């Protein structure tokens, strides 16, 4: 290791300092202005009242008291928790199943692999609008096929599972890609040794593949939780948070509070709470993933 300090008198490192900061200037401005500053601003805003147009006034802890004692926000956190608890396990199990099929590497697997990612590439908002028609009670695709109407999106008991199903549908192919990469990374010798010992493919899946996929599993679960906890577009276009807030995910609640009710202070409190929760999840992830694992699939 060479130290910069000992060569301080020379021209080269100093020029490197100026050059280094010159090259960093645009991205540093972006990071400070649009990622770090907003965090300070949202904390500051959580102590103020603003209706998007009028003056901003300081109200101390009033927004915090009002949000934390408000059942709407509690409901929204609970809805988000339920949503995450449905979406993440479902997309993980289905993604693993799809990956196991793709890993057989039969002719045409590549085409299927590509097809399955299509919903993920597609614009989430447009996907939601598409499904809103598919699920429409009178003239939607499913009602037409079944021949009778089902209130998929307006029945309080059905709405959240249905919204979750649409999100799972959109994510499965994407999740499968990671599991596929993980499965292909398992050395073939391990499987052939087990086969020689008489292990069936079912046994090999449970005893070899699954344990060796543990890092992939963790990555898929953690990123799955973090992104599911922030879903907005799909719920905005499918249900608008209804019926009676049964699908009011927390990102949608922040939006509705800020830009529907013009209560920026309250929305900021919710954003800070969401931020703290997500940071906690991410820190757990980093404790397990000191080194970033990257996969190559060619």
């Amino acid at each position, binding site marked *: 290791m060479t130290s910069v300090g000992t060569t301080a008198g020379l021209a080269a*490192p100093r020029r490197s300092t100026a050059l280094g900061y010159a090259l960093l200037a645009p991205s540093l401005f972006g*990071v400070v202005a649009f990622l*770090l500053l907003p965090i300070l601003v949202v904390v500051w805003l959580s102590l103020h009242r603003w209706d998007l147009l009028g003056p901003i006034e300081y109200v101390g802890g009033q927004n915090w008291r009002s949000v934390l004692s408000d059942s709407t926000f509690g409901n929204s956190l609970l809805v988000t928790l339920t949503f995450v608890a449905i979406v993440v396990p479902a997309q993980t199990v289905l993604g693993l199943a799809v990956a196991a099929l793709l890993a*057989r590497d039969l002719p045409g697997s590549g085409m299927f692999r590509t097809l399955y990612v299509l919903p993920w590439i597609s614009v989430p908002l*447009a*996907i939601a609008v598409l499904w809103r*028609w598919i699920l429409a009670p009178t003239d939607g*695709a499913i009602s037409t096929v079944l021949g009778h109407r089902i209130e998929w999106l307006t029945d309080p008991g059905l709405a959240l599972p249905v919204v979750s199903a649409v999100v799972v549908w959109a994510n499965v192919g994407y999740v499968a890609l990671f599991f596929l990469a993980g499965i292909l990374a398992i050395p073939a010798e391990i499987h052939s040794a087990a086969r020689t010992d008489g292990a069936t493919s079912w046994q090999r899946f449970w005893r070899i593949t699954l344990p060796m996929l543990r890092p992939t599993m963790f990555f898929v679960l953690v990123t799955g939780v973090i992104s599911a906890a922030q879903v907005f577009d799909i719920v905005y*276009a499918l249900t608008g948070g209804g019926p009676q807030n049964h699908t009011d995910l927390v990102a949608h609640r922040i939006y509705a509070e800020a830009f529907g009710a013009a209560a920026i202070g309250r929305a900021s409190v919710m954003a800070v709470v969401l931020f703290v929760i997500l940071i906690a999840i991410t820190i757990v992830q980093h404790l397990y993933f000191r080194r970033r694992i990257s996969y190559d699939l060619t």
Partner: protein
Amino acid sequence: MTSPKRPAAVLVYAGLVLGALITLAPFALGLLTSFTSAHQFATGTPLAWPRPPTLANYADLGGAGFGRALAVTTLMTAAILLGQLSSSVLAAYAFARLRFPGRDALFWVYLATLMVPGSVTVVPLYLMMAQLGMRNTFWALVLPFVFGSPYAIFLLRQYFRAIPDDLINAAYLDGANTLDVIVHVVMPSSRPVLVTLMLITVVSQWHHFMWPLVITSGAKWQVLTVATAALQSRYNAQWTLVMAASAVAIVPLLALFVIFQRHIVRSIVVTGLK
């Protein structure tokens, strides 16, 4: 892998085909509806084959401002792509190949910002843009994303570090300055990761919805996602028109997808997307 037993292969194919049907059917049915006349959709059964197929719904979208929305979306995506990639390349070069005080601490700060979620920054960014008088401008659409992405910088830095020193030193000895080295040596030898980042950036920027929804109003700077959502809530029952709108939002990325399909699949796995 050795050749699988016949019945097993049949089961695997059955599973794969079922998956493909579930994946594709919604797209196919939506597309079909977008080519059905509103009259036929309202009077016949909704899933009937369009008789005759019509482009009337797409023509109506032109009247609803979708031409402009497509142009704004393309322009926004292009501006962010250009800005984000060039700032990220410069920063990644500094982090990978230069030595200066504060480098490692700054890199750690960049990495930490990966944890800042978009749904948390929308409200404060709205205030900042409002204070700058930039609500409903093109700048408001692109500014928060145009100055580089910590993730792209992180990924590029790893590639740039692997470039042999001799290659870079030789260029310097030939009298090249740092910008020449970046453009003529570093970037050509990192082509795969640059293509990966370009694809991922285009896809994720094209998906933008919440930020354009709050920061723009009216038709002037409306992007496709916002236009589609607005159309859906205004013409709730006119599904033929609404399906044409979502097709317009989806198809450009689909085209990109078809052209770069092998690369996209690889890119998703390398970057984790988003």
